[in-house]
């Protein structure tokens, strides 16, 4: 049976998830909105009981009074109590809005769900109709309807609902489409669920957030439209009050009693606001259980980073940084952290290595080991929230992690260049290849003439063996194949004639035959230009193909560093040995591989002592006691293990 019993270590303790209502009520804005809306609805429903006056009761001796004890919201030009009119007006406005929302929801949401899920004529038809409907300004159709029916609010709001439903349909269709093509829907189909079951069980829960927001937005819109019509005198006929009509009355008294504007207008504004805020909060509350939230911390500003890095260096002043001669790049004790709401999380923990001129060095490891982050840190391209917390990176006599932005820019491209995975995404989609390469050439040679620039662009495209460079230059990134795009990306990196090329998983997204070609290209470019390559990879085959030295990383640390042949012949760290044995190329067909048990510890939860010890078959008590230093072996090999000798004793891989 499987040797692995992988325990699930959750990020947070999993208490019973509280119900939706409770989650909603934890949010202050939701509570405020709910309170207000409830107040409005209740006062409208119970207006006959709660209102201090009848809405049509005139008091001509008390006209246009401001707020008084008798009339908290004042009186209008006929002496009618504003507060009472608000309460009764709510009955009209809220009912009207409800009609609009119900119609829009019923038509729009159901059409959207079906159109999004079931491909074919229904989807097409619905889209065409929606296209047409969206071209018509809504209010004019409302006016058309009202010009025929006169002041019939119910019909007007039904029309509103119908006019808004195409927008609702579009939004729900979009959300449904996004979910429809997820693999778990396919898995459900394979399991034999019917279409209806899939929609109800799988699609609806995922779409519920969008639906909630939509309903709240339509509600807000409905209130605005209903009151707008009332304001224009097109709503319910007098003497029935409505909120819009209240504003209309206020508008006639702008010169005499401007106060009347305040209760009427604020009422509408706050209602609309409440709907919006409530919708947002409800959406968050309903998806809270299963939606992964990526916590984004703010990194310290650059100056602070430089200062803290300097302080760290000052601390470590005792160890003289000896830069070996011939070293192009020297990284010493590099520490990279990310700022999170829970505090700083260390991702790279004291990495050191050298890259010599013209050398080919690989940083190898699995996901989360910190290899990519290390490479990015060298040229100051860490993702937001990341910063260098210690260590140094010497290049040409300067420490790149301490440089200011403009000095770093001088190094990038012309001394150290970067090529990433997924080349098409790394090119600006709105500019041609020629334009982008030309821009780079001009940056590195500012006074170059147009003719020379064109020649240089052509030269770069030829260097990467693109046939018909002229045609490729005229293309946009989305018109390139994966292999071509990667060559263009390499050409872009070469524009500044760099001394070091950092290649971050450059072939991972490519087919195997293309991969071989790109690796051949990189090898050839190295020979022609003498530049060094720092390759980041998880693929041992790629590393063996191109690189002469390998550095194995795990949990933010260097575990082993050696010449490439030595590593394959005799790994000195159990992790390296385990990784090599995990490779199916080295296993016997259809026999179990010697897999490393357990899971890779994420940053922030690295074990004490040796970070690999929970998964290591050679681990002893000593391994857990304290950090293991990098131990030197023959031929300047290093390994962070106290049991390397036991590995030697075993038959080599």
């Amino acid at each position, binding site marked *: 049976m*499987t040797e692995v*019993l*992988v*325990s*699930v270590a*959750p*990020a947070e303790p*999993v208490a019973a998830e509280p119900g939706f209502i409770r989650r909603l009520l934890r949010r202050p804005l939701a509570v405020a909105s709910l309170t207000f809306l409830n107040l409005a609805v209740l006062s409208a429903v119970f207006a006959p009981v709660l209102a201090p006056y009848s809405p049509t009761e005139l008091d001509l001796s008390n006209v246009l009074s401001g707020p008084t004890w008798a009339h908290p919201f004042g009186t209008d030009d006929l002496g009618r109590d504003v507060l009472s009119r608000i309460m009764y007006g709510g009955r009209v406005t809220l009912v009207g809005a409800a009609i609009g929302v119900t119609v829009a929801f019923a038509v729009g949401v159901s059409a959207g769900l079906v159109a999004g899920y079931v491909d074919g004529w229904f989807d097409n038809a619905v889209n065409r109709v929606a296209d047409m409907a969206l071209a018509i300004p809504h209010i004019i159709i409302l006016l058309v309807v009202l010009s025929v029916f006169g002041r019939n609010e119910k019909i007007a709001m039904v029309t509103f609902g119908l006019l808004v439903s195409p927008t609702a349909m579009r939004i729900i269709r979009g959300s449904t489409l996004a979910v429809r093509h*997820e*693999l*778990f829907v*396919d*898995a*459900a*189909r*394979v*399991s*034999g*669920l019917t*279409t209806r079951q899939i929609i109800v*069980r799988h699609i609806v*829960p*995922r779409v519920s957030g969008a639906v909630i927001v939509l309903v709240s937005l339509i509600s807000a819109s409905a209130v605005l439209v209903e009151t707008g019509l009332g304001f224009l005198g097109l709503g319910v006929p007098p003497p029935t009050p409505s909120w819009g009509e209240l504003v209309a009355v206020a508008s006639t008294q702008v010169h005499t009693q401007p106060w009347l504007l305040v209760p009427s207008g604020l009422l509408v504004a706050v209602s609309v606001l409440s709907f919006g805020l409530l919708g947002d909060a409800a959406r968050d509350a309903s998806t809270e259980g*299963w*939606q992964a939230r990526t916590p984004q911390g703010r990194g310290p500003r650059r100056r602070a980073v430089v200062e803290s890095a300097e302080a760290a260096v000052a601390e470590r002043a005792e160890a003289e940084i000896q830069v070996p001669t011939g070293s192009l790049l020297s990284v010493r004790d590099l520490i990279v952290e990310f700022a999170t709401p829970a505090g700083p999380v260390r991702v790279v923990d004291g990495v050191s290595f050298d890259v010599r001129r013209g050398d080919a060095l690989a940083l190898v490891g*699995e996901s989360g080991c910190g290899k990519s982050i290390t490479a990015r840190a060298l040229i100051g391209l860490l993702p937001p929230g990341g910063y260098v917390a210690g260590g140094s990176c010497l290049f040409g006599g300067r420490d790149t992690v301490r440089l200011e932005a403009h000095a770093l820019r001088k190094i990038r491209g012309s001394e150290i260049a970067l090529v990433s995975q997924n080349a098409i995404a790394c090119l600006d989609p709105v500019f041609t290849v020629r334009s982008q390469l030309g821009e780079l050439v001009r940056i590195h040679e500012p006074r170059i003439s147009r003719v020379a620039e064109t020649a240089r662009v052509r030269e770069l495209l030829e260097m990467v063996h693109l*046939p018909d460079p002229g045609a490729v230059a005229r293309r946009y990134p989305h018109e390139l194949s994966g*292999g*071509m795009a990667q060559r263009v990306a390499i050409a872009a990196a070469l524009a500044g004639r760099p001394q070091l090329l950092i290649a971050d998983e450059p072939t991972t997204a490519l*087919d*195997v*035959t*293309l991969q*071989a*070609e790109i690796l*051949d290209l990189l*090898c050839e470019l190295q020979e022609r230009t003498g530049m060094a390559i720092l390759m980041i990879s*998880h693929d041992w*085959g*790629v*590393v*063996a*193909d191109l690189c002469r030295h390998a550095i194995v990383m795990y949990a933010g640390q260097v575990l082993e560093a050696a010449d*490439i*042949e030595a590593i*394959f012949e005799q790994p000195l760290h159990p992790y390296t040995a385990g*990784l090599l044995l*995990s*490779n*199916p*190329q080295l*296993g016997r*067909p*259809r*026999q*179990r*591989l010697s*897999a490393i048990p357990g*899971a*890779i510890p994420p940053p922030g939860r690295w074990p004490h002592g040796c970070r690999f010890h929970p998964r290591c078959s050679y681990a002893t008590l000593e391994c857990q006691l304290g950090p293991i230093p990098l131990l030197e072996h023959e031929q300047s090999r290093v390994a962070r293990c106290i049991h390397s000798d036991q590995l030697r004793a075993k038959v080599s891989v």
Partner: protein
Amino acid sequence: MRSGRRLLDVDGVTVEYPRGRRTPPLRAIDGVSLTVHPRETVGLVGESGSGKSTLGRAILGLVAVRSGRITFDGHDITHARARDRRRLSTDLQVVFQDPYSSLNSARTVADTLAEPLRVHERLSRAEVRGRVHAMLDRVGLFADAAGRYPRHFSGGQRQRIAIARALMLSPRLVICDEAVSALDLSIQAQILNLLLDLQEELGVSYLFISHDLAVVRHMSHRVVVLHDGKVVEAGTTEQVCDEPREPYTRALLASAPVPDPALQRARRESRRGTTSEMVAVRYV
């Protein structure tokens, strides 16, 4: 290990995708045939655009078949309707590549695993719970995983859940569509071992689709090589991988880098010695 009876028989299947009114449709698969026997793993290998995933989806009924026949255990399933697919799903299941998309993030692990049971069997809640826990144990996860949402799990753990879901009804054939391609090397080895163990224990067959020749070679009894929607070469693993006959297969084998620096150097030398047509072909 292999009995003469065929579990899955794909015969001259063609799948086309329409491409608008003026362009002829795209032939994703063109007259492909293969078979899978009980307790057997057949590896389907090819590069992107070869049609390997499309074939898997055609067998599962997720894309329509233009011509040809697919037979499962003697029944013609080429154009099976929803009701037939329902019955078929007890015997034919799938594990997809993307562990983040193949589990519904809004449902707990228990709900996801219980779903196939609820579709096909009438079990009490206690029985369902028991089967879910048993399966979690079998794929190497603790029982407390049942009440959690997928966001709590890593990629490797999610693939275990996906495998558990596929096996809930003890199917006879599981289509593994790039099931380990998104996983780290050490986790990949664990999952491959799990798949092998389950085959040993339950006698399930796999149609193992992958672009990674090394993995396919490791897992399969027989291998089928696809290129541009057509079968280029087929045979036992030893035949195809050790003594390939077709130039494409040879090129595929020669391109995939192996962790042997000396061998890679030698390959590069030979590549440089010849200006291969393969290089020219790829420039589209």
